[in-house]
Structures are given as C-alpha cells and as structure tokens.
C-alpha cells in the first residue's frame, strides 16, 4: 500500500505541496528518538568492540521496554557478550513522509555511530526497521532477531486455549525467512496456528505503515477494522505498532515477545495499548535503566519543563491521546507560562489558560496549580495557525 504513494509524496514534498501536518507527529517522534532522551550507542559491557549490535527500534522500546531489555540479555548470552546496543529511530517516519533531508540526516548519524562500533552486524526486531535497512543500507549486514531466536532460543511450553492467527506486519511481506521463524517459534512453544486468508506476502497493513493513520484517518480506520474482522481468533504479531493498533480497538492481540518473555499468569492479549506519552516515557526509562545497570552511567541533565508534574484525569488522558498531545507538550506550556507570566486566569474557576508553540503546533492547556506543586490539567487542545498581534 505504502509504495506507490511514496513516490508521489516525495515529489509533493520537493515542490512543497505536501501538507506539513500529515506526518508531523511521526517526524517529531523520530526527533525524540534520535535526541538525548533515547538515542544511545554502546559497545557491550566490559568490552570496547563488538561483532553485533542490537537495534530494537523505537516502537518496541516504547511499547515493551522490559522485553527489550530481556531481548538484549538473551543476545549477549547467545553471542558471548559480543553484542553492542544502539537505541534510536531507523528513519522510517522521514522515509514515509518523503522527507529526504531528514532521512539523510538520520542516516549520517547512524553511519557515524555504526562506524564507531566497528561496523558490526545489526540485529533487528522491528519489521519497519528491517525494511528501511534493506533499502537504504545495502552495505550493512542485518539479521532478524527472530531468526536468531528460532536458532538459539528457549521454548518453554505456553498455555494456548485455542488456535491463534498470525498477523504478518506488511513491512515483512517478502521476508519469508522471518515469517518461517515466527511460525517455528510459536509452534515450538505449543501454539496451534491457523493462517489468515491474507498472510505472508498477501498480508494486510495495520495502517501504521506509511503513516496512513496520520495522513488519512478515515481510510486507516477502515483498513485496521477490516484486518481485525478477518478472524475471531486471537492474533499474534511481531510488530509493536501492529499490536498497539489492534489492541486499541479491542482486538485480542499478543506480541510474540509476550510468549517468550511475558508473565505466564496474565492474559496478555488483553493488555491495553501503550499511549503515545507513555511510549516516550518508556523509551527514556529504558535508556536510563540500561545505562545504570550495564554501564554505571547516568542520563544527561533534564530540561526545566520535565520537572513539571501533571495530573491527568481519565477523560483528559483520553482527550489528549486522541488529539496527539503529549505530556511533554503540556509540560512545556505550563513551564513557559510560569516562567514568563504570560497566561490568563479565571477568578471564578481559579483555572489558568496558557499556550506555547515549541515548533509548528501551538498547544493550549487549561490547568490549576495544586497545593503539592503539581498541576491538574482540565483540557488541552492545539492548532497550527499562528497568532499575530
């Protein structure tokens, strides 16, 4: 689905006809991942070189930081600690948005870091990353995590109440070796697989690919619903975004990692999808934990806005998630308002209202400071139009 559209998109971007807003959220997510809150390159603990580097990608790290850590432990055990770590975004959002400039920037950064490690083989879990590496880094040797696990992993028997259906992420459509490994791992763990009519090279998109969910919401919604309706069975997938897209719509879906590293006593198909703010928070925590645990290092200094503590009631939580407003966006608004005094006040409700424009979007937050120094958020919204005098 994404392919024929991409060329048109690149042309549109080159002639500045592509709306800035469509891919903006994904591009900012990429900037976050390649910034100091997540980006990290390290040789394995206690050594200065490595033949392999684990590249878990931003979506797995944000959705399942605990599995990411365990996957890295498994790889170090399997390859005698000869595996470094690289946390960052592969550049897919820029590629999908047709932003050659941003992609080139991300590519240059990756190449510099990869060279520092001595050009190790790159082990990938995410199928979008895999696709990007295959197309844009023909000289870099890549290995699928799933192929490694199928060969060297352990396969404790898990409880399967019924057969499961595998959803192949569309970005691994033509990677039959990965599709085989997934089926092999699942079978070894006791799973009975019922193939979806549209699987492997015929698989359907979950709407994340090409950022369709941002560029064309109504079509994306139809695409994901159609996929969900293909089978009443639980889905098993191996892409964190596919899992989130199905789970957000109530479809019972597990990530293959749930069987490998997940808790046995919980019904993981019911685990809620990870929200966008939580996804960022998880990535940062992952970096912080690994730095401390494996290398006894600490995170770089945090920015002033990060100390702003927010309280989000459930309805507001849902509102900001739907509106693609992140906790960090709201923290910046309040920090800016507090520092500059530029805000409005309502005597009858005792609420403050303030706005801030960190990049291209202006965010508004209505809030009330609490006695303990935190801020209760009543609502948040945004617009792109710029306010003059």
């Amino acid at each position: 689905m994404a392919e024929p559209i991409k060329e048109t998109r690149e042309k549109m971007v080159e002639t500045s006809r592509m709306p800035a807003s469509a891919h903006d959220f994904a591009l900012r997510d990429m900037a976050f991942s390649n910034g100091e809150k997540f980006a990290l390159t390290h040789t394995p603990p206690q050594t200065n070189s490595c033949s392999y580097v684990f590249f878990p990608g931003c979506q797995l790290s944000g959705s399942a930081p605990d599995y990411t850590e365990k996957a890295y432990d498994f790889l170090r055990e399997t390859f005698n600690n000869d595996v470094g770590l690289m946390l960052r975004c592969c550049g897919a959002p820029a590629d999908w948005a047709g932003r050659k400039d941003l992609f080139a920037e991300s590519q240059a950064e990756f190449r510099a870091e990869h060279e520092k490690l001595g050009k190790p083989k790159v082990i990938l879990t995410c199928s979008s990353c895999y696709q990007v590496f295959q197309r844009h880094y023909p000289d870099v040797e890549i290995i699928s995590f799933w192929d490694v696990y199928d060969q060297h992993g352990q396969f404790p028997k898990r409880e399967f109440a019924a057969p499961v259906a595998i959803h192949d992420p569309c970005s691994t459509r033509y990677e039959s070796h990965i599709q085989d490994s997934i089926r092999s791992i699942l079978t070894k763990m006791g799973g009975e697989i019922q193939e979806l009519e549209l699987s492997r090279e015929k698989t359907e998109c979950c709407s994340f690919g090409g950022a369709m969910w941002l560029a064309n919401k109504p079509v994306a919604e139809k695409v994901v619903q159609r996929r969900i309706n293909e089978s009443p069975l639980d889905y098993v997938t191996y892409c964190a975004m596919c899992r989130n897209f199905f789970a957000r719509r109530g479809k019972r879906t597990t990530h293959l990692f749930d069987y490998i590293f997940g808790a046995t006593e919980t019904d993981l198909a019911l685990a809620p999808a990870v929200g966008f703010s939580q996804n960022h928070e998880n990535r940062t925590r992952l970096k912080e934990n690994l730095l401390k645990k494996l290398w006894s290092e600490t995170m770089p200094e945090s920015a002033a806005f990060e100390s702003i503590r927010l309280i989000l009631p459930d309805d507001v939580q849902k509102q900001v998630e739907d509106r693609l407003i992140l906790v960090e966006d709201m923290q910046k608004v309040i920090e800016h308002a507090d520092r500059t005094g530029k805000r409005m006040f309502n005597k009858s409700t005792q609420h403050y209202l303030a706005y801030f424009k960190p990049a291209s979007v202006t965010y508004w937050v209505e809030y009330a400071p609490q006695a303990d120094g935190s801020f209760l958020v009543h609502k948040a919204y945004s617009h792109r139009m710029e306010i003059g005098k």
Partner: protein
Amino acid sequence: MTQYFDPAKYEGWVCADCGVPLEMGKVDISYLGNSFPVNLLKCPNCGLALIPEELALGKLAEVEKTLEDK
C-alpha cells in the same frame, strides 16, 4: 468577521500578567503565508489573545485543512 465562539462563555478571564479583563478585539492569525483577521478576546494592555477550544478545533482546523489542500 463572523463569530466562531460565544464570548459570553469566556467572561471572567483576565490577563494574569497585566491583571486586566480580556476584551474583544481584532487579532491577525496566519498559516502557510495567508493571514486573516479574527475577533478574539485579548488583553487590551499586552495583546495576549485567547483562542477558545471550539475555535481551534472547529474553524481553525477547517481553514488549516483548506490551505493545506490548496
């Protein structure tokens, strides 16, 4: 210019910095090189303007989309 929100709903808001009530006034807003005047509540002293939620999610979102598709 047409009103896209009910100013009565926003009675009671003051500019916290200047300590004066907001008043209706003309504010220019712009996007992708196009500029429009709108009537908004703003501080008569420093010009701080209030964009209500219904305006941001309604008319502004509509205009943004039109200009992007142009």
